[in-house]
């Protein structure tokens, strides 16, 4: 268990921290359409049908362009505010993890 604490835990933390950086960067660009999947479970739709369903799905999702995915979200004013708040929240929680801990003497 000491091995876990000394070696694996810091590695896990590095990965967790990296998520904070890479996830917004790795976010998908906007897609042109809702994909139709061609598996044995699914069926191929005619263009007219697909168009109708897309409009239905789009209304159900009720998303704004910026929220619908894509790195553009983080380039908007709202996205910037989100990044600042996330940074503050994660940063303070990380700080607290290190500084508020009542470390047991045997660990």
């Amino acid at each position: 268990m000491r091995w876990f604490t000394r070696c694996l835990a810091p590695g896990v933390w590095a990965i967790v921290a990296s998520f904070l950086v890479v996830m917004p960067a790795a976010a998908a660009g906007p897609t042109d359409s809702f994909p139709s999947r061609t598996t044995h479970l699914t069926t191929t739709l005619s263009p007219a049908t697909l168009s109708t369903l897309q409009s239905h799905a789009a209304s159900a999702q009720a998303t704004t362009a910026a929220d619908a995915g894509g790195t553009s979200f983080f380039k908007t004013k709202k996205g910037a505010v989100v990044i600042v708040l996330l940074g503050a929240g994660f940063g303070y929680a990380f700080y607290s993890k290190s500084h508020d801990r009542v470390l047991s003497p045997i660990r």
Partner: protein
Amino acid sequence: MRHTIACVVAAALLLAGTATTFAQTFSGSISGVVKDEQGGVLPGATVTLTGKTGTKTITTDANGAYRFPGLDPETYSVSAVLGNSFRPAKEDNIKVSVGSTLNVDLIMKVGGISEAVSVVASAEVVDVKSSATQTNISQDLLANAPITRTAINVFNVMPGANSNSVYGGESSSSNALLIDGVDTRDPEGGTAWTFYNYNIVQEIQIQGLGAPAEYGGFTGAVVNTVTKSGGNRYSGLFDIIGTNSSLGSNNTTAAITAANPALGQPAVTKKFVDFTTQIGGPIKQDKLFFFLSAQRFQQDSDPSGPVTTLHEVSPRFNVKLTWQPTANDNYTFHLQYDAYNIVGRAGVSELLATDALTNHEDAPEFVWLGQWRHIFNSSTFAEVKYTGWWGYYDLNPAVNLPGHIDENGTPSVSQGWFYYADRGRDQVNASVSHYADAFGKHELKFGAEFEHSKVRNRYGYVNNISYYDYGGQPYLAYSYGYDVSATNNRQSVFVQDSWKVGDRLTLNPGVRTDFIQGSNPTVGKVYSTTNVAPRLGFAWDVTGNFKTVLKGAYSQYYDGAMAVAFERAVPGVAPRLTYDVSVPGQKTLIDTFNSPIYKMDPNIKHPRVDEVYGALERELGSSMRLTVTGIYRENKNFINSISPSATWLPVTVTNGLTNAPLTLYQWANRAATQTDFLVTNVNGFAYKDPSGNLLGTADPFRKYKAFMAVLNKRLSNRWTAQVSYVLSEATGTVDNTSDAQVSSRQFETPVLALVNVNGNLTNSRTHEFKLLGTYTIPVIDVSMSTYWHMISGRPYTPFQQYTSSTLGLSGQSSAYRRPLLEARGMERNPPERIVDLSFEKVIPLSGRDKIGIYAQVLNALNASTITSAQNRVPNTSISGIANPILYGAPGTIIAPRQINFGGRWSF
């Protein structure tokens, strides 16, 4: 970019790979039939399901039927199209809950494809297909209602659940707590171990009565929590709530203070701040999604009682990835870390603890999950999970000096001990669900679970000594400690069916088998049981119109794999040494009690509860449901420890409560038998005197009877509510507090096994009324929620501590010398009448953006309800309080009115 994504996925896979898996239901399904206006079925229609992670399409079969299995709990829409001669049909706002099978029939009208007919789905008020009863708590309710938001006690809003005891079961330790399938309970005793942020919850499902065979390892209730995940659109939440002492009140009274000066000052929340930042969204549209959350919780308080400072901090992080490489495959990886810390945790009874008698708690943990769900076709899907957690919790004394306890039982100087608890669990669950038509319709589910969990407990006195003071000076001293390791292994298989025999009748048969082994690295396997738990339920649609259902079930539920059942049979406990230290500077060994390794009954049976219940549900109007339920539960196979060769001499003492003679029992042959103990199912064990005469027989039992009436009103006309009344009785000889079985050692002495032992259990609440409701005030658009509960107070029983010499128990724990002075549970604390309120003003912004400003008013009436009484006769003493606290005085009262303010931005 592609490389980065690959790295992230690889890292997540690596993380998931370090852990293991699992099988309960954490998904729902939507099925239905596509018809024309005349009711004719429409084969070949294309049905499209739209959710937050994209769309799925399927073609209706020859009967016009379709099914989308294995859906995460969220809101969906379903559309259908068929050629150019029918207008598309669509249903929106279909809310899939955990374990739900929604029937959504679509009616297609003749017309052009450009005009869609769209309706908002309305779920059936009465479930006519399931014999089980369950409570689902949504994220909305969790966020808005003034209820406790942690899984370990959120189920207390359920009718029949109070103080973490559900349907008369042991509080906490009898409930299964699952987070995304991770069994987060302590593998030693079954109590809650891992906490989590309520803001990451998508939905909580509580299974109580008639639970199907896939659920096991509980004799109370199952709490299924499903956490949020990312989708195609970015969504986020920033939430903060807090308060301070100026927003608190004082609920002490002159009478309470006079009876117990330690309660003269109310519990004060000095500072409370709890914030969450989280975001979810796509990494690749329709394919890969992420969810991140960070929380920091801090509460500084001055609790009721002598302790003045209690400081809790918990930073917590969640990372979740969801990957859909194909329409039929879904992978989920989730990792949580938190570091829970406390300064000022009471190290002795809260009634007696002072700041010096507290400890520091260090409790970090990791929780992990890796899950694969594969849909073979619309009739079959499978889930495989590898889950687990690792953590420890260490308690170190605030004052690192040996502890003292005087002749009145009053501790001083320090709590005097340390405790280190290491825990871990790996679990693999796999299940296959299959829908079939044969002699009716079947929803079959088969599954297997494999658990490996570890326990290590270390305990000792500071400097390996603890003092007993007499006349203000050390008189005796003790040395004691242990380092015990134990391992649970469990293999479970189950099969269950929801068999719709006809239009009205559904049967729910099932069976579950658990193979449980307990072992220790030194002595190997010491515990082994095979537990077969049948379940049989039915649901009958009485009127055939989905408005009235009669349901019922007979079920057996076995406890989970818990090391407490056998850990006394493994080595690691040091002898308890007693020294005479009455002469300053001298330390003379006067008694050695060799802590024995208990024997295990090779034919031992695992504890279980048998349940019979029946309920009638009736739809009232379009949005209300009335349910009346009768419940009978009886626990079986109680495990405890006995001393088979011990003999006992009746001794007559004076009952300090009544001054009447009271017969107790002195250990007659302690020297010869003090290491002879057996862990077994104690029912029928005979206690004898030295001549072999029978003194009494162990009769462990616990029974629960209840009548329940529940009125549900789902949201319409701006209000929603649940009103319930429960009349119940929990009686027996084994209490239903946490870990009331084997760890109590109740049956090692007839003093605790035979004397006044039968009566009302601690969590027996005769009357229970609860109202949970929300109303949105027109014009100002402020929602107001209330949780009002009026419950009979908890029973309690006076006890008296007799001397070691009277009972021949020198060196033994004082608990063995504390018989009940009257029948169990004859006394009862005052009724609890508590009203909690919350208010929220939501300010809509653009799109889904909204800001909420909210307030919670807890204990709005500022009640000073007594929650426990001082039950030691004639009195007990508290360090720093001049006069002893008399029997019957208030021991603890609820926290005073406190107002919390919060705000959140969600999008």
